[in-house]
């Protein structure tokens, strides 16, 4: 295999260490897994990169070694993104198949066109993908309404009765997407479904405590909701305490626990 000079990839960091090299072949070092998944759209994209940037002859990759590397890679992948592992593995298999066909003695030439280059199909796919990849970039560069230009909207006062806007779950989703796109929310504002259930309970408990008086710890739990519900409520109360929204007191060891909201709700709100 011709050793290829690989350039620095400035934005790539793994475990805080800069990653200096992109993969030399279709094998992805375990440490670089996340980076490769983010940088490349799949095996076709990775292959294209290797061919275009480094003049890599994909058929020059030592296949036995590649296969071995792939097997260890699959083991790691099994834990999270198996479907992507399968795609990279499939591509490796395709390369091996092409190479083995090229190593076979060629049948005596009958006519020019009957001998098909085993690489032709792969190359056709690579080119088609590349064409679409470039088209996507151009599409992205076109001015988008709302992103690159604003639509004109002048107020019109309707005499008819005022209608309230309809909002769907989809609208909420879009609003969050916009927020995510803007801020670097990805890192510190991940909200999972189970966390949302805690948030829901936090609100319920705070509402129950809004009179400002102490309530017995047990009274904050809804026993009919089942054990998962009780656990979530418990976590919610701990979370409220952490955010100093509630005060938890116990006057004597093993005595009753009381909870109170850390504020008094003013009626002027």
């Amino acid at each position, binding site marked *: 295999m011709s050793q290829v000079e690989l350039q620095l990839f400035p934005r790539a960091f793994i475990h805080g260490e800069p990653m200096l090299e992109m993969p030399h072949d279709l094998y992805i070092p375990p440490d670089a897994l996340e980076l490769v998944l983010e940088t490349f759209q799949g095996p076709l994209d990775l292959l294209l990169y290797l061919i275009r940037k480094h003049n890599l002859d994909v058929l020059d990759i030592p296949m036995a070694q590649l296969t071995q590397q792939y097997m260890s890679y699959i083991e790691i992948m099994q834990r999270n993104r198996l479907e992507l592992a399968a795609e990279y593995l499939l591509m490796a298999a395709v390369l091996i198949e092409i190479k083995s066909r090229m190593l076979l003695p060629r049948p005596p030439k009958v006519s020019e066109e009957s001998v098909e280059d085993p690489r032709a199909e792969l190359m056709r796919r690579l080119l088609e993908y590349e064409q679409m990849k470039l088209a996507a970039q151009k599409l992205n560069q076109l001015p988008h309404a709302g992103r690159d230009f604003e639509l004109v909207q002048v107020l019109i006062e309707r005499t008819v009765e005022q209608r309230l806007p309809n*909002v769907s779950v989809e609208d909420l989703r879009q609003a969050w997407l916009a927020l995510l796109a803007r801020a670097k929310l990805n890192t510190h504002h991940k909200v999972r479904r189970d966390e*949302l259930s805690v948030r829901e309970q936090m609100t319920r408990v705070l509402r129950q405590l809004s009179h400002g008086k102490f309530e017995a710890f047990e009274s904050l739990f809804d026993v009919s909701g089942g054990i998962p519900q009780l656990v979530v409520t418990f976590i919610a109360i701990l979370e409220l305490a952490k955010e100093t929204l509630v005060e938890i007191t116990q006057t004597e060891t093993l005595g009753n626990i009381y909870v109170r909201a850390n504020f008094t709700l003013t009626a002027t709100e």
Partner: protein
Amino acid sequence: MLSVLEAALLTTPEPLSLAELKKLSDVPLENCFIEELLEQLMQKYASGGVELNRVATGWRFRARPEMQVYLDRLSPEKPPRYSRAVMETLAIIAYRQPVTRGDIEEIRGVGVSAQILKTLEARGWIDVIGTRDVPGKPSLFATTKQLLDDLNLRSLQELPSLEEMGNLLERDES
């Protein structure tokens, strides 16, 4: 600058104050300079289908009242939409409740006008469930059952998971 002012006022249905209009320029502008430009714009739109008005909270274009009878023929039943600011505020309250106005501003990266919160409260979708015990005692907002009803959900957990959504976005603005 006149064109910028024109574009800003025509793309924003809500009134824009002098302070907001000043933000459009990267050099500090005098009030009287902006007022002069607004005067010119008013002249430009002295005839035609829309007019530039000064209202309590600032300046805005609106269709001339006599146009309404025609415009009503166009789309009598197009429901209005909340602005992105309102939707984002609602989304933050839904996913991060209980939150203060400061929390919302921090996530959105811009100020949240009292008007936005009032709109959502008036709709019965959010309410104040307490205050945070920090200086200023800011109100804590949470979503109501009414919101769940209106969105046809049984619980907040039925909202789309944010993790899946995050994967669809570019990780780096380059």
